[in-house]
């Protein structure tokens, strides 16, 4: 079968990293990713199924990996060679059930007794990502045992597969995984009902975070830092109350909260800032723009950053990361506008309800139908163009770029139905 594969090839990784800033095309050409004919992955245990991807998304972390611009932190947590792709809608080989993939390789898929985190439903913090029935890898898409979405076949544990209703399109479905990440970020953040909130960045992660915040907290006053026209339009469509320029976040925070300002010091600011960029500049701005005692949530994958943490210290800002998904708990009163009762993982414990993030994402997607965020689809063969488009997304009128594996060869540019 055909599969895009990343091998541990130091020279190619260094080349990709050096060339990435100058030319994505050249970086790909000389980098570690290649389209290959490979054997399908082996089934680890009888609890695993074969899945043929229909659509598979290109995520920012995938790009960072392919272009070797990611931190080396993850190197021990992946197993080479691996096929990227963890945002997947596909069909199971045996029953042809359409499923979305909960890609995280936690204790259950690994055949392990649930660790202390998995026991609490907090699989995103799993202790077992390097042990068990499959090789190390935090998710399918980073594990050599499982294959990944950028191929014609992968294997997944039954617990990782969520059947989907027919009224969810493939485009909606492939965004369930990143939406789950966004919902996890929003759900784990304390956002007062009429809070003033900012989302920095309006790529896929940023826009899905906007959607997630508004889904869970419709009354918040939400400002979005969006650079490109397509991002600005999309943010408004998803419920942003205000658009803010990249350099305007601090002033916007001051105006919105009528704060006093001396230099970079603000007497007030946004209650919460969701940073979906993860750069030094964005995190610095986020820390300066949040209120004293407020929270900056790093949603997008950051890397090495140089940030002046003085305002974080002086204004007692909380800087918190959110990764992937697990189980979310809400005070019952805060989710009265959502009907969670029909979801399979829903547990009502009196004042609190809890639900698996993926289950919540499926429910949210039924309402939000976010498939329109997919602007471009490419066949695997055209992976250089696909990755280049994804790397330049906003500036080239793109939001989400996916591989379309429904036909052997199909070059279809997504229709932009904004």
């Amino acid at each position, binding site marked *: 079968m055909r599969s895009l594969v990343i091998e541990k090839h130091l020279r190619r990784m260094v080349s990709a990293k050096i060339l990435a800033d100058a030319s994505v095309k050249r970086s790909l050409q000389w980098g570690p990713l290649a389209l290959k004919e490979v054997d399908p992955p082996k089934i680890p245990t009888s609890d695993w199924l074969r899945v043929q991807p229909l659509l598979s998304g290109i995520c920012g972390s995938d790009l960072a990996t392919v272009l070797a611009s990611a931190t080396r932190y993850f190197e021990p947590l992946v197993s080479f060679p691996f096929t990227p792709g963890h945002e997947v809608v596909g069909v199971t080989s045996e029953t042809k059930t359409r499923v979305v993939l909960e890609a995280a390789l936690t204790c259950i898929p690994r055949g392990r007794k649930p660790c202390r985190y998995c026991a609490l439903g907090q699989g995103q913090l799993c202790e077992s990502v390097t042990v068990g029935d499959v090789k190390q890898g935090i998710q399918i898409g980073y594990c050599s045992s499982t294959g990944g979405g950028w191929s014609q076949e992968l294997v997944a544990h039954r617990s990782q597969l969520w059947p989907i209703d027919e009224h969810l399109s493939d485009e909606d479905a492939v965004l369930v995984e990143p939406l789950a990440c966004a919902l996890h970020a929003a759900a784990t953040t304390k956002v007062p009902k009429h809070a003033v909130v900012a989302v920095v960045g309006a790529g896929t992660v940023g826009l899905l975070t906007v959607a997630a915040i508004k889904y869970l907290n419709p009354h918040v006053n939400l400002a979005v830092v969006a650079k490109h026209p397509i991002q600005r339009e999309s943010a408004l469509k998803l419920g942003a109350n205000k*658009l803010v*320029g990249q350099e*305007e976040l601090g*002033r*916007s925070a001051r105006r919105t909260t*009528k*704060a*006093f300002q001396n230099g970079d010091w603000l007497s007030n600011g946004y209650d919460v800032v969701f940073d979906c960029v993860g750069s030094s500049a964005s995190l610095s701005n986020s820390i300066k723009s949040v209120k004293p005692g407020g929270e900056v949530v790093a949603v997008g994958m950051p890397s090495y950053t140089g940030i002046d943490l003085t305002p974080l210290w002086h204004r007692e800002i909380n800087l918190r990361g959110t990764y992937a998904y697990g189980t979310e708990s809400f005070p019952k009163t805060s989710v009265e506008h959502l009907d969670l009762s029909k979801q399979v993982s829903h547990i009502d414990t009196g004042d609190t309800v809890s639900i698996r993030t993926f289950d919540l994402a499926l429910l949210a997607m039924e309402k939000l139908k976010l498939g329109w965020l997919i602007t471009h689809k490419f066949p695997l063969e055209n992976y250089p163009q696909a990755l280049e488009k994804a790397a330049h997304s906003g500036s080239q009128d793109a939001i989400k770029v996916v591989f379309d594996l429904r036909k052997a060869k199909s070059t279809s540019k997504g229709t932009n139905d904004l």
Partner: protein
Amino acid sequence: MTSRPGFVLEVDRSTPPTLLWHGSSYRLEKFPKGTRILYPPEPQEPLVDPRGAIEDALENPVGTSQPLSTLFKKGMTLVIAFDDVSLPLPQMQAPDVRQLVIEAVLEKAAAAGVDDVYLVAALALHRRMTEGELRHALGSRVYDAFTPRKRLLQHDAEDPSNLVDLGTTDQGEVVEINKLAAEADLLIYVNINLVSMDGGHKSVATGLASYRSIRHHHNVKTMVHSRSFMDMHHSELHSSNWRMGRHIAAQGVKIFQIETTLNTDTFPKLFDFLSKREWEWTLKDRSAFIASSKSLQASPDWLSRDIMHKIRSPYKLTGITAGEVEAVHARTLNKVFSQQLVTVEGQTDILTMGLPFVGPYNVNSIMNPILVYCLALGYFFNMYVGKPLVREGGVVIISHPNKAEFDPAFHPSYIDFYEQVLTETTNPAEIESRFEESFATDPWYIHLYRNGNAYHGVHPFYMWYWGAHALDHLGGVIVLGGDPKATRRLGFQPASTMMDAIEMAKSIVGDDPSITHLHSPPLVMAEVI
């Protein structure tokens, strides 16, 4: 020798290129044949003896006023209010006319034994003047005599302890002004009437008023119905101020108005060519033009701006009238019009204008895009009596770099207005209803207005309303040489050359348009017949 009047030149083959202001620089532009160029009158002859004329005006007031020296009584409280740094433009060479007048008034007061005297800069919602600006306007002798005793004050429209509510006019307009001025035994207001909009009842009713009061005439409805606000008889802005002024007088506030007029001798010798008609340029003028324009264009923005703001105009006093407000102002208007008015036959399809480096609200500062908008559509467009120089549905072409640069100390709310209001809408009425109150009551802006040198938070809104009549009237606005992004933010179109701009304008006004160029500054006002 009498000065030559202004006139309208029709461009023909022999017409040399025309000087066009472009922010802190200027250039020569060749206009199409048939273009009319409106040249200002030459500066009127100044008064030979300014100090004598001041003395004469103070002792021979007009209207119902008594001579000033008879109004002074020992033990009385005297407040002398004066126009702020927004006048004149550019700042005039020392001694400033305010200094001459105030020194004369103070000498009379001292002679009468009046020692409870305050000087108040009539800021309205403008920024506080700096020490240098106050020294320049008043002279160091006055500054040093009053400042240590805290008797040189700047009106604070946000100081509830020093505002007094005088009730409302018959139209329900709140009249709230400076308490010290209102409760003084005598309030003397010293004006510089650079343009016909200034002075009259507007001096006290606006210059010493609070936001609560000013908002009754500084709004979109009033500005759209001020056609123009340089023509008080057709200006709702003035009608409102006159109602307030009469109400203030009816409440017992005793005002002695002093209005001064200047000629249009705007530029010092080095920049003499800027006031001349191009075909009369000497070799020295041409050399000065080339040297200065090339140098300014080659300089970084901050440097060229700094150079230009150092210009001190050799304005000279042409008239001074004192006494009762309305009688004084009627004489002042005649004098201003006699200096600036030029008769123009018929309106034009396209009006071009080169904007200089300074307007009323960026003295010693940056002319940001909102001030560019205001200077063009608020001031230059409104330099008419009768009907606008450009026809309804016509196009204005503005020459200015129009960069999105702001002075955070002077114009903090302008930055937010640019980023957070103009990105949503450029419609004056919508801006007023959705955003004004929030900016006007923002405590940080109020803090900076009261304690720093910032314009009030509401000020950029007033700038926008100032252009509301023009926006209502015009079919389009094109900014020649303007930064494209900033120009579009204002709702205008950018053009890189005059020919491009004219071609773009044709798509709005049709082929074969009539074009008129406003050759200003020096100031010129059109009486369109």
